[in-house]
């Protein structure tokens, strides 16, 4: 017991117990009760939101044939921290990747985050995914995430449909709906109807563990929202006619636009050369895009909406109608043509050889240049000065839906060009030009420019005898007919009665043996048309043809442009009449003509699909 004199020192030990426990308790008090930040971190830790992607809406043609559906695809995801000791070479071989790009991609993911998942490879095909799945256990840190991507079921309509890709940055910035890596329609209907097609994303909150495994829903799904699938679209396109047109246009540059005049529904919208829309789906999109972009025939360029051509002789119809409306000509009016129209020695417009002193009907059928130069001169001269006359004339032209955007549901377009008075004032000086200065505008040249869809719409106006419906591409959304301003008729400034003589002339273009498109005649069909040849400063003339049929109660109006192919009668006219026959009867009576067109190659180097 001798050493028990130090028994007082036990006080130190009591003090030690209580003071250290107090330190622990104070710290715990702050941690658990005062400081709320740990509670938030805990939620952030375990509650994860997952976006549920809706199914993108399907796209059908007017006959309910599927054009764009969805297919299952997989994103290869990676969490860099969890990558184990993997056989990189084997990995690259399975997913078809170069070693350098593997290293680059891993670095990119690491830069994003070592702990969070990121997309390593986007949209790999089902086959590759299946193969990878087999070896998944060897590649820790990698996993597959299902998503859907487009599948275009018909190898057609590439420009109409457009394509879907990763949403561009400027959209993410301006639209809160989109997140990085979301899908977004870039062009075509995919773009203009993006809002309908995409649907609405849903959000699911759930608990996750440290390995990101789902561990049950958060607060019984109170904050979850369901994904709403995209709406299905029925296009106005007739896929049979579209594909037939594409067939006729193969190995040619140009465009076909067909419209149902009584509704404004676009039946075909062809830009040639085109491409397989599936090229711009999935993993190889950017690679294919660059190839298409570099192709010198510019398959990505939508000629039907974006190309602008001088309308050539087809524009004579408009001048004829304005002449009739202004009362400067009548159906019986005749003008002389001595190999053309001559103002003075220096100003002449030539014409091909034909019987002289034609009336209106004959002048249209035989496309007499002189007749329409005279007509244009009379229209302008009717007014006390050129400016007033020209503006009057121009107003008539604009009422055909020309010189401006159509403001329809296509995602792109061009206004074309109907020159203003000031355009000529700048070119020639104020009051220093008169109608002879710009006489070639009467035969569709000079500074005139029309896009193929405008040309087709102009044909529609004539077919309807004075009005048109805005050409549009979507017929039904989720099986409900569209109901908007496209269903309201827009009238041009020409009275209905003046159309008949012009239409009679158009009928003769094909039916009369002197008609410029007599070669494109289809037995037993009443087709009214007009050929045109657009002079092209860059090369051979463009061949143009517009037509509608039947003469009374027209069902289809069509505009055809074949670039650098020469006379309108040679190429564009047969294509136009074949299209009409195909649409109205479903078959082709003159297979010789069909084959001649189909097999012709009018392109610098054949475009390979």
């Amino acid at each position: 017991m001798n050493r028990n004199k130090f028994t007082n020192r036990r006080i130190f030990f009591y003090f030690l117990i209580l003071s250290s426990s107090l330190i622990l308790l104070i710290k715990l008090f702050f941690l658990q009760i005062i400081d709320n930040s740990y509670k938030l971190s805990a939620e952030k830790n375990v509650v994860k939101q997952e976006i549920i992607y809706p199914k993108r809406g399907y796209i059908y043609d007017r006959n309910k044939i599927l054009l764009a559906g969805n297919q299952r695809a997989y994103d290869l995801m990676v969490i860099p921290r969890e990558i184990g000791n993997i056989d990189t070479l084997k990995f690259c071989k399975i997913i078809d990747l170069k070693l350098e790009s593997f290293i680059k991609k891993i670095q990119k993911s690491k830069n994003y985050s070592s702990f969070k998942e990121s997309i390593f490879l986007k949209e790999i095909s089902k086959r590759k995914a299946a193969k990878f799945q087999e070896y998944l256990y060897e590649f820790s840190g990698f996993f597959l995430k299902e998503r859907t991507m487009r599948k275009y079921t018909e190898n057609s309509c590439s420009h109409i449909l457009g394509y879907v890709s990763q949403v561009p940055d400027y959209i993410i910035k301006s639209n809160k709906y989109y997140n990085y890596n979301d899908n977004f329609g870039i062009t075509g209907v995919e773009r203009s109807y993006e809002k309908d097609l995409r649907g609405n994303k849903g959000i699911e909150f759930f608990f996750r563990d440290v390995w990101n495994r789902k561990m049950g829903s958060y607060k019984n799904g109170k904050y979850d929202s369901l994904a709403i699938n995209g709406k299905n679209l029925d296009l106005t396109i007739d896929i049979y006619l579209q594909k037939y047109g594409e067939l006729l246009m193969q190995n040619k540059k140009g465009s076909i636009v067909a419209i149902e005049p009584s509704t404004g529904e676009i039946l075909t919208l062809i830009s040639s050369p085109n491409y397989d829309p599936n090229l711009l789906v999935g993993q190889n999109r950017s690679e294919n895009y660059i190839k298409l972009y570099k192709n010198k025939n510019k398959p990505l360029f939508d000629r039907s909406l974006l190309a602008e051509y001088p309308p050539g002789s087809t524009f004579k119809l408009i001048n004829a109608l304005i002449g009739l409306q202004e009362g400067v000509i009548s159906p019986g009016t005749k003008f002389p043509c001595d190999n053309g129209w001559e103002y003075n020695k220096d100003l002449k417009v030539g014409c091909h050889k034909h019987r002289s002193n034609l009336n209106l009907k004959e002048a249209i059928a035989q496309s007499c240049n002189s007749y329409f130069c005279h007509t244009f001169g009379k229209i302008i001269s009717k007014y006390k000065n050129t400016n007033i006359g020209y503006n009057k004339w121009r107003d008539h032209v604009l009422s055909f839906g020309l010189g401006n955007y159509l403001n329809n549901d296509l995602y792109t377009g061009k206004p074309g060009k109907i020159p203003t008075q000031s355009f000529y004032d700048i070119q020639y000086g104020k009051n220093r030009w008169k109608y002879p200065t710009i006489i070639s505008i009467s035969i569709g040249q000079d500074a005139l420019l029309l896009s193929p869809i405008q040309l087709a719409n102009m044909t529609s106006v004539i077919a309807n005898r004075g009005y048109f419906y805005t050409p549009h591409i979507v017929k039904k959304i989720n099986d409900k007919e569209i109901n908007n301003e496209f269903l309201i008729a827009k009238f041009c400034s020409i009275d209905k009665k003046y159309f008949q003589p012009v239409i009679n002339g158009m009928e003769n273009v094909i039916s009369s043996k002197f008609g410029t498109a007599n070669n494109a005649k289809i037995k037993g069909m009443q087709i009214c048309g007009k050929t045109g040849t657009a002079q092209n400063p860059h090369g051979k003339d463009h061949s143009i043809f517009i037509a509608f049929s039947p003469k009374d109660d027209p069902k289809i109006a069509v505009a055809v442009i074949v670039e650098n192919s020469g006379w309108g009668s040679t190429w564009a006219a047969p294509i136009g009449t074949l299209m009409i026959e195909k649409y109205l009867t479903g078959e082709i009576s003159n297979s010789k003509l069909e084959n001649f067109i189909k097999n012709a190659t009018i392109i610098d180097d054949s475009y390979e699909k």
Partner: protein
Amino acid sequence: MRSNKVLFRNIDTQILLIYIIMILYGLLNIFAANYDNDIMILFNFKSEPFKQSIWILSSFSLIFFILLLDGKIFASLSYFIYFLSILSLIIVLFIGKEIGGARSWFNISTMLSIQPSEFAKIGTLLALSKYLSQININISKLSVQIFSLTIIFIPILLILLQPDAGSSIIFFSFLLILFREGISKYYLILAGIAFSLLIFSLKSSTKFLIISLIIILIFLLIYMINKKKLKSNLKLLLTVSIILFSYIKTINFIYNDVLKPHQKNRIDLIMGKVVDIHGIGYNLNQSKIAIGSGGLFGKGFLKGTQTKFNFVPEQSTDFIFCTIGEEWGFIGSFFTILIFILFLIKIITMAERQRSTFSRIYGYGIFCIFFSHYFINIGMSIGIVPTIGIPLPFFSYGGSSFWSFSILLFIFIKLDSYRMDILR
């Protein structure tokens, strides 16, 4: 002796009650830490709660055996047990299984591994108690102090060779026994100063510390010159400053040149020098998140999210306190700490009532072990002590530690049952 006739004669029931509360509450939390929406885990032979139950049940037979023994046997076998544990610490360096970079386990079978450092605690404590309880020992003699330190430092060195810094720290706590047994109080003051200097030199820059010390010394010098006491104290002042500077330099040297990078990182983290929640600080941060998210009342039994979804690593062993903090909240933490306070105070009072010096020293010894485990384990879970992987007694999952804690405690309970006997 007659005492053996009745097994539970004079057994302290209060400490037994605290012990039972601890193992039951501990088991509940090990179950919660492993719970996976599936009650069947209780019946899975490989699950931790099941295994821990086996450890607890098997320890009962061990306890029974200890209580059966004659209490004198611990004192008489103490040097032998010490020798055995030192031997096992040497052997483990050669044939031990390497876990987490340290060779500190004997792998007996897949189900059973034993950590010799756990049992070395018992051996060392028995040897120390035996040595210091000898009649002719005077602790104020330097030779006695040196011999005591040797008993403590042999296992420390061997454990550092494994290397398992965490376990070796526990042995330092035995120095407190020497204080209780009468070593000069200046040692304690010195240790206090040394410890605070250690913290300061690790927390702030060494330069700053040395400059402050120099300023203090200059003031002391001026003070002494003014009081004209300079001559008599100059020698002392010089010695003190030399010791201080060399001490700081040594800490600096150990920190920069001896410690491994991961150990350095842990220290920096506690000192708040680095913030890195994904790297080395991941465990600590996740642990704090789990405990902090418990709030006042906790998320409820089996309702924890952080510990359940494996955000907290080693959640049933070293970080078991996270489960308590998350599911039972501050109330649960407070209760756990209260239990430990009661437990530790009980041990001190029990030790003080011993007539036998051996028993008293032994009692203080287990106090040191339980106290340091308690403070370091909970302290590291809430970030006031560096992350040192040591278990929370009777709470953490693990057979070796549970057994060794039980043996330590019940040897004391057995020794305590002789408290009425005349002398030893």
